């Protein structure tokens, strides 16, 4: 079943590029949602069946695939913003950087020793690449929403790596990750609503009054 997981990881990487490439916020939110769903399926493919597993899967799919995207799209609608206009870095350069980082992450993963059973799969690569994608979104996009999206992509990357530890680690760490994701996103959702109420916009370049003169 691992091979299927591997193909799904390829899909994840593609979604990374979509989230880098698109300018429509709703679309990228959806993309991230899909990514979340895929991540939700992955554990099921890797481990033998158990109710705990089912539980995990359901929770992940619910949170990553539906709750958070709903929150975000509500924020988007309330702030009436459709697109990410003039990002700090154009889409084409971002895509190129994304490609470069993906390549780098492959190089990075190549240098690290792996368990034989993980040897010829690209968990590490995918996770680092996703992490970097998240970073790229965080650094290049103007809208607060896109930054949250970037953060989510990062979280996904971390989650992918988490899969490698799924059976070895106590459940606590994943739970921690999930909690962090959940609460983090909730709080960010709240903050974003506050922002849009305060500034009637989600353009973070308005949020630059605090700086050194």
């Amino acid at each position, binding site marked *: 079943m691992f091979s299927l997981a591997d193909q799904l990881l390829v899909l994840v990487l593609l979604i990374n590029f979509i989230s880098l490439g698109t300018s429509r916020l709703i679309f990228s939110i959806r993309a991230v949602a899909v990514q979340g769903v895929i991540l939700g399926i992955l554990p099921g493919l890797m481990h033998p069946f158990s109710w705990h597993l089912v539980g995990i899967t359901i929770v992940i799919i619910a949170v990553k695939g539906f709750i958070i995207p709903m929150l975000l799209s509500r924020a988007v609608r309330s702030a009436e913003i459709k697109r990410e206009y003039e990002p700090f870095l154009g889409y084409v350069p971002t895509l190129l950087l994304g490609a470069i980082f993906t390549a780098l992450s492959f190089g990075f993963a190549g240098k690290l020793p792996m368990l034989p059973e993980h040897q010829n799969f690209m968990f590490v690569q995918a996770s680092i690449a996703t992490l970097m994608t998240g970073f790229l979104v965080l650094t290049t996009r103007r809208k607060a929403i896109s930054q949250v999206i970037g953060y989510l992509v990062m979280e996904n990357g971390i989650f992918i*790596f988490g899969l490698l530890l799924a059976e070895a680690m106590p459940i606590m760490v994943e739970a921690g990750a999930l909690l*962090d994701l959940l609460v983090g996103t909730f709080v960010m959702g709240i903050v974003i609503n506050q922002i849009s109420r*305060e500034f009637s916009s989600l353009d973070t370049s308005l949020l630059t009054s*605090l700086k050194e003169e």
Partner: protein
Amino acid sequence: MFAALIILPLVGAAVTWLIPYDRLRPKVLALFAFVHLALTIQLLAFTPPESPGGWFHLDAIGKIVLLSTSILFFTCALYSIGYLFYRRERSNRVLCAGLLVCLSAASLVTITHHLGLMWVALETTTIFMAPLIYFNRNAHSIEATWKYLLICSVGVALALIGLYFLAYATIVARVEPSLLLDDLIRDAGKLSSGWVHAAFVFLLVGFGTKMGLAPLHTWKPDAYGEAPGLVGALLSGGLVNLAFLALVRVYQLCLATKEIVFFQNALIAMGLFSMIVAAVFMARQADFKRMLAYSSVEHVGIMAVALGLGGRAIFGVLFHVLANSLTKGVLFLSSGNIHRSYNSKSTDHVRGAMRRLPWSGGLFLAGFIAITGSPPFAPFISEFTIISSAFIQGRMLVGALFLISLTVIFIGMALTVLPMVMGEAPADSEITDYRDSVWTVGPPLFLLLLVFLLGIWIPEPLMTLLREASALLEERP
């Protein structure tokens, strides 16, 4: 015992959340803080054995951090009684409850030896601090909160993946997979250096962000500048120490693996860089709260350098954890009073504080003298220990850079602080209803007395505690 330490504040949080009266809440807060302090001292006196499975283990280092956090929190809670009296315009429900949750999480960080659990607790503090920074409910505070939240979350996320790397290293090494510090230290020799290196880097950046090492410090001036005085005090005197504690855990691990040199050099480099950045940004600083934030950047830099130096400096840094948090308490609380009285944070408007608020102004001045490492205050002891050990180890360059940035920082800070406290208040400055009272002046005064006493006399128990702690961090060839 441990459970009490964690549960009690949570109960307190629930209680304060349910209390409907704004006037009553701070008193309850103070009450719970006091009980927590008592509990802490009890724990320090009679330390229970580590819990089965080794998840909870209060070692000497944890004790120091726990003690400083608890003392500082108690003082801030007392202060909140006086402070919130002047902030009647808004509800303090979130503030009080949030503070107590943070206290619980902080205690958890100090007593657990499970890195994963520690990470969860740290993340909790990060999240629950956000609404406290947003206390003032205005455009600036929301911006500060946003930056704080996003940057710190990213940092903590990086720390998480660092932990994952560590865990995976254990798996790869075919040892019992675990994130318990003691297990990791035991098996450290076997771990593959590639993963360990990667883990250390991510953990350093992650916890470094939380701690505010330059250039990961960017959220600090905004958050400290916009948060209320007592929250600032807790951020710079409490959370910083927690993140530092996390770094120390990583350091212990490094000591066990043979990768320590890289980690030490990285710490020294980032520490010195932080001090230089602080020196640069403190000069001509127009907002005294932001200035304090940079001072906090400076002090995390000092801690990092000291940790990197090792040797005698370890003693210095462990003492500095305590000294710094107490002194920062004095500065933030008194600056909060000054802010209340002038209703401005700008150093152009705030003049002659000594005349207008003899107590708060004096405390602020004394705090400045203390934090810049002048005797007879505690930070002098720690800073001199660190500097001297740098020179004794023959690391002249590190010592020289350290001293130079300390001096530049002193000059910058003096040029900002002295005009604030000296002279006469400008005629056009706003007159507010704030007056120095026992509740607003007492707590920082108490802290200052502590700082002074520790500067001339270190009680024997504390001394032994520091010795044990630094023994834990010795390099064994």
